[in-house]
């Protein structure tokens, strides 16, 4: 039965249901319990923003605080995965990948191939992405293109509470290493989420809104930005189709190409940096495989190629917004 819960609650529920279902599911990370070793209460935090709150009470030592040692505990999650567990490891902010990346891209990602198909590494690394919190350059990035670049990793970027639950359950049951990117700007967003367990397959884009004039591809928080832009543009008589790929690896090319076949116009909205980012990648794919479908140059709406600034004045300029998306769509529509 569906009811409205938040993106954050949807993630917590997915973890809860999978831990109840499968004793090999364990959780580890910094302050995922909060309080270990201290004189106060346990489960004091339940994650820095409370996403794992309450799980300690139900599952005890299957959810573990760690020292601030990302290489060690991310690597431990990966090692435990090769030994029959299904760890869900929390890398608090995706920005912290710099202190543990080797374990992810040289170890987890390569075991299966490098060991001749014999390894199985069912690990999920949950991590927060996204700007908008005045959290500055080291706590605000959208670094998923870096993971998408690495063969052997799967990369998941939910944009709604419904997708967050279904994709996380899929991620936990998946036998390959999965990077699960949670936009912190979406944690409070509410939506319809079934109480029962369900999965959403990877590599299947979601058509968030149907339209006939222009295709907008958007990820994570940019989906809601695109929806706002589409509402405004509808009043001007421009019909937008919004596609959320939901996973960047594997990636659903067909849904985008089919949409562009109908609309002839493509706008890609991405919060990651423009160089070698998802917008550039999707743009290249459509230019290569759908050149004849396009009736206008592809438009990309991304941040500028800068670090994320601290000042609100600057950060608001940095993040793509509905007005920028509308402008890009209008520019695209100048070509019939």
């Amino acid at each position, binding site marked *: 039965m569906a009811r409205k819960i938040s993106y954050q609650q949807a993630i917590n529920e997915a973890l809860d249901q999978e831990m109840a279902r499968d004793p090999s599911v364990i959780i580890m990370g910094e302050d995922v319990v909060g309080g270990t070793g201290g004189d106060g209460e346990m489960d004091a935090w339940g994650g820095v923003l409370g996403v794992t709150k309450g799980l300690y009470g139900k599952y005890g030592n299957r959810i573990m605080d760690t020292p601030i040692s990302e290489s060690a505990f991310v690597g431990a999650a990966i090692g435990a995965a090769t030994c029959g567990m299904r760890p869900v490891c929390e890398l608090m902010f995706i920005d912290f990948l710099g202190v543990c990346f080797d374990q992810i891209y040289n170890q987890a990602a390569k075991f299966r*191939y490098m*060991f001749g198909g014999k390894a199985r590494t069912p690990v999920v690394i949950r991590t927060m992405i996204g700007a908008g919190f005045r959290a500055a350059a080291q706590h605000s990035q959208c670094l998923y293109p870096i993971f998408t670049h690495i063969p052997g990793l799967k990369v998941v970027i939910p944009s709604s509470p419904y997708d967050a639950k279904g994709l996380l359950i899929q991620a936990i049951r998946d036998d390959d290493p999965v990077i699960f990117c949670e936009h912190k700007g979406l944690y409070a967003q509410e939506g319809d989420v079934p109480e029962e367990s369900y999965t959403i397959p990877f*590599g299947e884009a979601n058509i968030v809104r149907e339209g006939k004039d222009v295709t907008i591809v958007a990820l994570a928080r940019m989906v809601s930005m695109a929806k706002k832009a589409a509402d405004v543009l509808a009043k001007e008589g421009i019909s937008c189709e919004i596609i959320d790929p939901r996973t960047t690896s594997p990636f659903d090319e067909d849904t985008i190409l089919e949409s562009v076949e109908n609309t002839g116009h493509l706008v890609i909205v991405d919060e990651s940096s423009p160089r070698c980012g998802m917008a550039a990648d999707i743009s290249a794919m459509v230019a290569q495989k759908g050149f004849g479908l396009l009736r206008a140059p592809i438009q990309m709406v991304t941040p500028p190629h800068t670090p994320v600034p601290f000042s609100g004045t600057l950060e608001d300029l940095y993040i793509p917004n509905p007005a920028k998306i509308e402008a890009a769509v209008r520019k695209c529509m100048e070509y019939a």
Partner: protein
Amino acid sequence: MGTALSREDLLEAYRRMKTIREFEERVHVEFAKGGIPGFVHLYAGEEASAAGVCMNLTDDDKIASTHRGHGHCIAKGVDVKGMMAEIYGKRTGTCHGKGGSMHIADLDTGMLGANGIVGGGPPLVCGAALAAKMKGTGGVAVAFFGDGASNQGTTFESMNLAAAWKIPAIFVAENNGYAEATSSKFSVACGDVSVRAAGFGMPGVMVDGHDFFAVYEAMRVAVERARRGEGPSLVEVKLDRFYGHFEGDNQSYRAPDEVKNVRATKDCLNRFKARVMRDHNISETELTAIDDEIARLIEESVAEAVAAPNPTPEDLLTDVYIKY
């Protein structure tokens, strides 16, 4: 010093050490002839460490190895013919020719992988040890690493995490005196790796890595402690490599007669043979019989590896994911 090892155990320990030695000496020869592609890092001279450690382990116990991993693989029971074929890049290799010397892994025997990244293994071993603890198997996990990796943050982090979680992990620092071409007298700022154990609240011991019995006993204590649920230990094994960092290394950073002297005076196999013949009623004939078996095994391994098929073009694209 007494030992808990039976006569059969001692013969098995000899078999493992001698197999490693013959394997590596042969790889040295074949590499020089140009038959083996890529980089190889030989373990010859260090056999007492791999064997002394792994004689304490069962198939349920796990190890993670290094770029110098052939000895660990053999000591843990990885198929020698599969290893040789892998080193030749053949489809019949342990990893079907997709890993090579630096990435031999055999999860069925608890060998979690050699590793091309210095310090890559210790975090993984924390996970293997955690899995053993959570599943209640009584298993342990061993991280082999060198004096080079002893200076990596991953190693420090892993020792701390293992102690904080009190998991059955054992850290085996194989200090052969050189991280590539840089002496550990320079790079290990505190002198000995073993003293670092104190910083992580775990026991740390240093043993002579030319002496199988010394390694075996130190590991026995560490493994028993881990199996009792008392947490991790650090064992530093001081040893010498007979060859360079990699094949082709002219080793001009070593003293001119260093390797010659080590081979003459500190060869772990010679020491082992002398001791078991003296103290354990093992005859030269028994050991020679093992030598002959190993010689045949290595000969067959090379012949079969050379004759084996290369991977197919289709293999390029398989096994990136389980499902994609």
